[in-house]
């Protein structure tokens, strides 16, 4: 087994920064009680102002001005870590959040799918960068060693127990996650590195130190296994973003929306699911939330496409009040079946599939805009067709001549100059559903030469008006 540890040294700060489009502004995270506010983390721009973690807010304000303060929210950080676990779940079936601010994943069984470790690692790094998290990645032969080596290394790949042991042996004793009193005791004994500790006889160690120390050392070297609790992805996706300021234009919502949808896509890829319906809640300072439902005809999980669809609907929305928070919720996550493309398709230059085009049209023109027509076995012309979202099954054949265009509403046709070419054809039907129809149909030709399909109500006068219902175009 090979374990990779992805350490996220700046998880709390990154979770805040990735939701903002002004990431290069000085920003600090605040924590602590109201009487003693302390800087929990600072971004590089704030560090350039001379600020550092651990300063109190009053001294920070004395040092510099014009930095943004954000309240540290452990719950939000926890949500980000859950999201990262969902992301990692697509690469490995064993993902653990055992250690705070770190992801442990078993990668040996994933190498067959994602290629040799250097390529796999490059992919992990690239995706983490896109998600906006700074990280350190270390590979080792057991999870504890991977986590502890990540304290001092980045990019280390110790792919067998011997290299792992060698890498561990050179580690300083206080970076190994030993109980603090044991680490202090070791360094006071003059043992600075792990190999010096390992050189001691086992019995003397066991006599002098608590059992936990020996246990930890054994786990570190892979001599004893550790039971890890593995991550199980949830069945629904829920994400909420506090904008911290009021947003009055839907354009300004696009940036935070993009982040949320990228998170959704990462989550879906991990679950190997798609999303068919999700809701966007725009929360206002007061009053009910504005709900923006986004429905698709087929499950989808590409971030770019999902964003485009949500954007098309968002742009049509007029905001009745400034938006303060944004929430995205996806309840139904059906299995995602990728479209199978033909290798030797006649339409080889197809840049965009029909499904994407259909969703794009629906997003801009409305959910009802793209329809198929189907035939219905009914003699009444206005009932003999229906419009459906999905392609209709072919109906029965009709041998009598029927017009290609049907008028939505029949309109009166003046009799003057009209030539009756065929008819009458009696259509009498529908007494059972209230849409009773008793008509004589004629094939007519107008003075201009168009040929139409017109009828006269049964019981009307012989010279009464004809009602045009279709064109033989």
């Amino acid at each position: 087994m090979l374990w990779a540890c992805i350490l996220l040294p700046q998880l709390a700060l990154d979770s805040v920064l990735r939701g903002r489009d002004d990431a290069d502004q000085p920003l600090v995270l605040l924590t602590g009680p109201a009487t003693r506010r302390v800087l929990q983390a600072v971004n590089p721009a704030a560090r350039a102002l001379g600020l550092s973690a651990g300063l109190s807010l009053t001294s920070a304000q004395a040092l510099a001005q014009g930095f943004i303060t954000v309240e540290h929210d452990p719950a939000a950080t926890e949500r980000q870590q859950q999201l990262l676990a969902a992301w990692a779940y697509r690469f490995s079936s064993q993902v653990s959040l055992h250690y705070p601010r770190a992801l442990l994943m078993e990668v040996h069984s994933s190498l067959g799918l994602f290629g040799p470790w250097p390529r796999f690692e490059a992919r992990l790094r690239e995706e983490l960068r896109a998600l906006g998290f700074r990280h350190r990645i270390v590979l080792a032969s057991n999870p504890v060693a991977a986590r502890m080596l990540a304290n001092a290394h980045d990019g280390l790949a110790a792919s067998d127990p011997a290299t792992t042991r060698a890498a561990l042996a050179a580690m300083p004793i206080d970076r190994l996650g030993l109980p603090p009193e044991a680490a202090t005791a070791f360094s006071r004994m003059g043992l600075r590195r792990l190999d010096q500790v390992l050189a001691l006889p086992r019995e003397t160690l066991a006599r002098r130190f608590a059992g936990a120390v020996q246990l930890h050392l054994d786990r570190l070297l892979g001599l004893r296994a550790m039971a890890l609790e593995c991550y199980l992805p949830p069945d629904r996706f829920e994400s909420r973003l506090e904008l911290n300021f009021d947003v009055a234009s839907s354009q300004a919502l696009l940036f935070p929306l993009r982040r949320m949808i990228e998170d959704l896509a990462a989550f879906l890829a991990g679950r190997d699911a798609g999303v068919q319906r999700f809701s966007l809640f725009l929360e206002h300072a007061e009053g009910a939330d504005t709900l923006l439902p986004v429905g698709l005809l087929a499950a989808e999980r590409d971030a770019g496409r999902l964003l485009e669809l949500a954007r098309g609907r968002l742009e049509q929305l007029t905001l009745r009040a400034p938006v303060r928070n944004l929430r995205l919720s996806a309840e139904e996550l059906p299995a995602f079946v990728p479209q199978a493309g033909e290798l030797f398709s006649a339409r080889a230059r197809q840049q965009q599939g029909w499904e994407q085009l259909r969703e794009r049209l629906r997003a801009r023109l409305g959910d009802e805009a793209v329809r198929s027509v189907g035939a219905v076995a009914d003699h009444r012309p206005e009932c003999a067709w229906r419009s459906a979202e999905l392609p209709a099954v072919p109906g029965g054949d009709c041998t009598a001549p029927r017009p290609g265009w049907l008028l939505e509403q029949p309109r009166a046709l003046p009799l003057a100059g009209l030539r009756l070419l065929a008819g009458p054809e009696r259509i009498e039907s529908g007494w059972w559903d209230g849409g009773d129809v008793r008509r004589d149909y004629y094939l007519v030709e107008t003075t201009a030469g168009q040929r139409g399909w017109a009828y006269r109500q049964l019981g009307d006068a012989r010279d009464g008006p004809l009602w045009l219902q279709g064109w033989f175009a």
Partner: protein
Amino acid sequence: MGAVVSLDGLLDTRRVWKGRPLVEAHGLQPTGHAGLDAVLPGGGWPAAALSELLLADEGAGELHLLWPSLARLSKAGERVVLVAPPFIPYPPAWQTAGVDLRWLTVVQASAAESLWAAEQCLRSGSCAAVLCWPQRADDRALRRLQVAAETGQALAFACRDQAAALNPSPAALRIAIDTRPAQWRVLKCRGGLAPNRPISAAGHAG
């Protein structure tokens, strides 16, 4: 004088004008009407280009002209899209004409959005034929459709009023559809001279 100039080179630099350009291979996108196919330079619709149908009146016979092509495409499993048609396509008649309704899609759009929708359909490359009824399409709008048709390798048909026949148009093919007598007049066809003799719309008249 006396310099030997290769004929191919002259032709390549387009300094020599040839009276009749080569007629492309026949049968690329046949219209399904033998009389019309015979006079059109490509032996049918110009592939991946805009064709303009200029109607004398509503219901003048555009479906009679288009149905064979639409039936051929839909039977081959290629998508046909009607963008904002003025009437409801009546399924029994379309089926009788041989159109496979599973591959026929109607997009409802307002007059302002219909050009956008048509362009999207053409550009996507997933539609074989796109029919639209632009109300007040100017030269620029038609050119956009023409470019989109080239990009997506699709047949674009714009049905317009015959009053537009006098305006120049970027369409590769322009056919005026008369009702009395029922005939087609080719006003312009790219890659050849437009025949000055109208073609009878057989089967439709009388």
